[in-house]
């Protein structure tokens, strides 16, 4: 418990700046905390087993208010990741690692337990914290995560009806 309190204290503004050394893991080398293996989960080309609990928890919160079917969004996300340049994929995987690994997830997101047990309110708080952070790194992580999920969902024809887009014309 004392450990948790200590880490929670790191989340106030000054503490978070001190924590920026840890936050460089985010881009510099998640390998320092033990990078997840690059093997894809069954049924996916890119997404790994360790990425899925986070994505299954965060995606419904980001896309709340839409009728997005989770597995279709993840499949579309997987396709998009497969076309990224190796360097951009590496950065994306480091973001997923930071979110998946308990060592970084707790202090940086405030989600202390497993993603499966995180409440939507806690996930919203994490998204707002990153969006409004004074650290470029966390704001960047927020933007990347949102863009990946939004582009995956809104490129699926199932999203178009609710945003009044009739789709491409017939030619």
């Amino acid at each position, binding site marked *: 418990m004392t450990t948790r309190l200590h880490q929670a204290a790191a989340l106030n503004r000054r503490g978070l700046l001190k924590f920026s050394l840890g936050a460089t893991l985010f881009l510099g080398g998640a390998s320092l905390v033990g990078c997840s293996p690059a093997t894809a989960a069954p049924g996916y080309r890119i997404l790994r087993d360790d990425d899925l609990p986070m994505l299954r928890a965060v995606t419904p*919160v*980001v*896309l*709340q*208010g*839409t009728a997005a079917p989770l597995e279709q969004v993840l499949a*579309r996300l997987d*396709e*998009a990741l*497969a*076309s*990224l*340049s*190796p*360097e*951009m*994929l590496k*950065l994306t995987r480091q973001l997923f690692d930071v979110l998946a690994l308990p060592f970084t997830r707790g202090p940086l997101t405030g989600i202390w337990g497993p993603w499966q047990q995180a409440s939507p309110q806690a996930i*919203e708080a994490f*998204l707002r914290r990153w*969006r*409004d952070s004074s650290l*470029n790194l966390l*704001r*960047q992580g*927020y*933007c*990347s995560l*949102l*863009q990946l999920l*939004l*582009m995956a*969902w*809104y*490129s699926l024809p199932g*999203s*178009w009806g*609710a*945003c*009044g*887009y009739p789709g*491409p*014309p017939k*030619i």
Partner: protein
Amino acid sequence: MPVSDPFREGLARGWKARDASALDHHLDLETDIAIIGSGAGGATSAELLSAAGYRVLLIEEGPLKTSSDFHMLENEAYASLYQEGIGRLSKDGAITILQGRAVGGTTLINWTSSFRTPEPTLRHWASTHGVEGHGVDDLAPWFERMERRLGIAPWQMPPNANNDVLRRGCAALGLDWKVIPRNVRGCWNLGYCGMGCPVNAKQSMLVTSIPAALEEGAELLYLARAEYLEHDGERIEALHCVAMDPQCVAPTDRRIRVRARHYVLAGGGINSPALLLRSKAPDPHRLLGKRTFLHLVNFSAARFAEPVNPFYGAPQSIYSDHFQWRNGIDGPMGYKLEVPPLHPALAATLLGGFGEDNALRMADLPNTHVMLALLRDGFHPQSIGGSVELRSDGSPVLDYSVSPYAWDGVRRAFHSMAEIQFAAGAESVQPLHAASRPAHNLAEARAMIDGLDLQLFLTRLGSAHVMGGCAMGKDPAQSVCDSLGRHHQLENLSIHDGSLFPTSIGANPQLSVYAIAARLSQLLGERLATPSGDLVHSAFGR
């Protein structure tokens, strides 16, 4: 009625094109002129030089996709036609950079706006950057020639509702606005220029200069990444390429060596300087990749009571230069106002947000208009642009800082756009920033814009125009190439693309690239004809 696919028909007739991803062995090729990059600069050069009788090999990193492949679907287009699978960002991740990567380059996916290089820009290049022979009168015949070649004319049909907001707002306020010249013939007014034109109306390089070059016997090698130039500090001996996989993500283990009399580099901003950096090309004054400009873009959204349907119709047909030159060439940053098309995936990333807010905003897409400002960078001492660097794997990334001078331009552009949107009848206006909310009148918008914390990631920033990094000019201490595009140190290398520009253009750059590449190619062809023309075999040995 089925739409024909003239490129596939040409291939069936015997155009020489090779898919490097399918190679089962290494290749050694020889040609007169090797052209690296098949976009506006490379394809224009290929057409002129092959017409002049040279054997031309046109080398493209991206895939060959033709009109039958263009299904007007965002995910397909972004994955196959854009650099890094649309993942290209500035080094700090704050600026999305849209660049094409396929046979035809960015001309395949641009929004067809075609402007002559503004006269103040050309005068500034001559007076400040030592550029010779690119005066208004020097280039006028080349602009005319390329306008005829590519069907460039002001858009004849009424603007779509998204563009009409810009026209109405400017008209109500008495600001300058004009109709955008577009490079189209028989345009169907669909609105999918950014995903590859499915009806071959856009006069991209895919339907114009590349077919013309192939008809003359030029050869096309695609899915081949130019890795480095082998040289002795004075002359290039060979170009070394790696074959890419069919998705253009990673190299295969096949290599291609190309030997040519002359090499024309036309990979565009970022990729052209990167090839020279990987090649350790002479760079005695440390200028390579520096002063790379973006026309940094910020956005303002507005809601209208009547439908805008911003996903349909010619994506760009109205512009305003009212705020472009009024502070002088090098005063506070000037900007050009245009609008972007809004298809759901791209719109969602621009409008941002998560949860119910996002869902509600996206539900309003048919009534949403977005305006953008292209900030004219590179003209003021505090606007030095970015610097191209190599990552550990040799791929390039642009380090671009947004200066206080540029942020001032961003804020003024937010004000201008909000004013025009309200003047056009907007119910609400929202500058695209993480802390903004819809403002219901101009006073409310102005107060919000003045209070916005303009920082990276909070402010939505993008770019679709990468310029500079191999600047031209007469003084080797200030430029990478001379005013003819000849590399100052490597005698058989020319650069024919937007990386030559010593500043940004101040307008969508495709016509600048076409005209300058055409002029430089004509002169290159004349120079190469004077020494005895070596007989060279077909690049593919056929």
